[in-house]
């Protein structure tokens, strides 16, 4: 690593936030440590989201995400910039996740989907658009409840729904990083949307009803 690297760090922090990834990649390929650090900063949130969406094991996400960037650093001289840096990085992340799951011989963590009546009622309020969660805390609680329901889906359906609808990846991005046809992604997404509602109603619907009965009895 270049000993003079820290001198390059300031311009990126102050005035060159809009420097293109391509330029940062070129500098990184020439051994600039601050340029690569800037690339890490720019893409860490998406890589984190991608790894979290695939692994579904919160404790290991940070470690795997760090490993992704380490591999990117070690391989950046071989990156020819024909694809976008983000696409190349996301492919490393997906491969790293599968390697991790294979080496550790672990399946993504399966949550217990048993929700309380109050929790089911909260999700019902969102489904019916009556009580959408307001604020980051309420949305984080919703995420936690939803993760339990999503865990009941087939793995690929869960990953696609989480990455597309929660983490904000586009269909095009998902097709590229998962090596799928764009239309295949759309079909799988459409079917997965139906499946999650089927599971939600089948597994948790009885609680929603049982929650409704006392409420009606109270009125009477």
């Amino acid at each position: 690593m270049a000993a003079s690297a820290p001198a390059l760090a300031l311009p990126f922090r102050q005035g060159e936030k809009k420097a293109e990834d391509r330029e940062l990649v070129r500098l990184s390929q020439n051994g600039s440590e601050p340029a690569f650090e800037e690339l890490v900063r720019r893409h860490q949130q998406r890589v984190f989201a991608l790894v979290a969406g695939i692994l579904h094991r919160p404790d290991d996400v940070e470690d795997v995400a760090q490993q992704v960037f380490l591999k990117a650093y070690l391989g950046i001289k071989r990156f020819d910039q024909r694809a976008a840096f983000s696409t190349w990085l996301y492919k490393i992340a997906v491969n790293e996740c599968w390697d991790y799951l294979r080496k550790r011989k672990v399946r993504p963590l399966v949550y217990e989907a048993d929700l309380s009546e109050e929790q089911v009622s909260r999700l019902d309020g969102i489904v019916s658009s009556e009580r959408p969660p307001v604020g980051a805390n309420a949305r984080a609680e919703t995420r936690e409840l939803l993760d339990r329901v999503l865990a009941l889906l087939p793995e690929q359906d869960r990953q696609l729904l989480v990455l597309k609808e929660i983490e904000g990846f586009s269909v095009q991005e998902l097709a590229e990083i998962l090596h799928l046809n764009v239309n295949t992604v759309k079909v799988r997404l459409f079917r997965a949307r139906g499946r999650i509602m089927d599971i939600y109603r089948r597994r948790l619907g009885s609680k929603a009803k049982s929650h409704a009965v006392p409420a009606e009895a109270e009125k009477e």
Partner: protein
Amino acid sequence: MTTDAESRSGCQAYEVLLEDYLNAELSAEDAKLAADHLADCAACRAAVKRANASTRLLRAAEPSPDPGPAFARMVMARIRSAENEKAASRANFWQPFVSLGWRFAATATFALAALVTYNAGWLHRSQPNVALQRPTVDIFAPEPARAPATGGEVLMMVADTGHEK
């Protein structure tokens, strides 16, 4: 007549179109095509209704948080550590060869020194001491007798011997 799969997710031929319809990513022409189909197909209407509900649920969830500025620093620290390990392992790779080289050099030097020492000792023992063995020349000593070369010298020798007696 709709199949079981179609009753769950709508008509297979329209799945891509309906996914785009849900995301409002259709051209005016395709949007009309989707609307016309939905007006005619109860299975697809139900599928879109389910998909809409699940989309509301999913979009209400908080995305994964940004890991923060410490994350980038930790990544860079890990990179430096990996680079150091790599450099150390590169040095370790040559270490056995270097060690072997030094041992070989030391052994060769020792063997050479031993050989030179032994050779010098052997030469010392086997070579006669010229200084000690050189005869001392006595200039006053009589000339050593030599064999007579002619008959006259023989007669002279016999006469000398008789005269001495």
